[in-house]
C-alpha cells in the first residue's frame, strides 16, 4: 500500500510540485531536487499524515520547507548586496526631488486564459531578471507567502535589509511588467 502511495504521489503530483518549485527556484535542476527531497521526506513522514488535508496540500506544505532549504543554501553562495546595490537603478525611476520620473500607466485587466498565461510568462521572466538575492526574498514573500520575520531568520539578514530588498524588487517588477506590455495601452 505504501509502495503504491509514494509512486502515485510522483505520478499524480510530481509535475505540479515541479512547477511550484520552478517558479520559486528559477532552475529546473534545483526544482527536480526539491521534488525528490519532498517525496522522500513525505515517505519517511507518511505515518504522520492524518488525511485531514488532501495529499497535494500535504505535499505542498513539505515542498515549501524544501524550497526554503534550497534558497538558504543558495544564499550562502551568493554575496549579500551592499547597501548601494540596486540603488542606482532606483534613482532612474525618480527625479531628484523624489517625484516619479515617468507617469505610471494603469494595467490591463487580463481575462482570457491566453492573456493570463501570457501575463504569467512575463511575471516569471521579470522575476528571473531580478538580482539573485532580491529574487529570492521576493519569491519567499510573494510566491511562498512567508512572513518577513521568517525570511530574515531563514536568510540571516536584518529586517531593514529585507524591507529594502523587497521595496527594490517591487519597483523593478512593476517597471518590468510595464515595459513588457502589461499596461492598458499596450495590452494585446
Amino acid at each position, binding site marked *: 500500500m*505504501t*509502495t503504491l502511495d*509514494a*509512486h502515485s504521489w*510522483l505520478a499524480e503530483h*510530481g*509535475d*505540479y510540485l*515541479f*512547477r*511550484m518549485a*520552478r*517558479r520559486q527556484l528559477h532552475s*529546473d535542476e534545483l526544482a*527536480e531536487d526539491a*521534488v*525528490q527531497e519532498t*517525496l*522522500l521526506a513525505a*515517505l*519517511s513522514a507518511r505515518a504522520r499524515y492524518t488525511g485531514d488535508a488532501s495529499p497535494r496540500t500535504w505535499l505542498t506544505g513539505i515542498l515549501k520547507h524544501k524550497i526554503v532549504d534550497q534558497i538558504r543554501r543558495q544564499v550562502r553562495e551568493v554575496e549579500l548586496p551592499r547597501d548601494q546595490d540596486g540603488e542606482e537603478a*532606483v534613482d532612474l*525611476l*525618480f527625479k531628484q*526631488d*523624489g*517625484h*516619479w520620473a515617468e*507617469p*505610471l*500607466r*494603469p*494595467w490591463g485587466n487580463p481575462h482570457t*486564459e491566453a492573456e*493570463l*498565461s501570457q*501575463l*504569467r510568462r512575463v*511575471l516569471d521572466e521579470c522575476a528571473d531578471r531580478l538580482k539573485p538575492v532580491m529574487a529570492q526574498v521576493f519569491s519567499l*514573500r*510573494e*510566491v511562498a*507567502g512567508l*512572513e*518577513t520575520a521568517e525570511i530574515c531568520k531563514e536568510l540571516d539578514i536584518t529586517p531593514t535589509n529585507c*524591507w529594502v530588498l*523587497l*521595496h527594490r524588487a*517591487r*519597483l523593478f*517588477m*512593476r517597471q518590468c*511588467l510595464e515595459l513588457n506590455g502589461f499596461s492598458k495601452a499596450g495590452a494585446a
Partner: protein
Amino acid sequence: MKWLPTCRETTALASRAMDARLSFADRLALRLHLAICRNCAQFNLQLHEMRRLFRAETGADDDAAALTADARQRIATELQKELDP
C-alpha cells in the same frame, strides 16, 4: 521625513505596508500622499495586483513545464530505494 513624504519615500511605505503594520504616523503619511497622488495610488494598486497574480493557485497549472522522463525515473528510483532498503 517631512510632513508629507515624496513619491520615492511613499513607495517604500507602500511596500512595507504589504508586509507589516506601519506606525500611526507612517500610515497617516501614506494615506495623505496616496489621496493626492495619482501615480503613487497606481503604484499601490499594482503592488496588490502583483501579489494576487503571484499567489493565484491556478498560476502553476497552465504552465506547460513538467518533469522530464529522466528526472521522473531518477526520483522513482530513489523512492524505491527507500521502500526496500
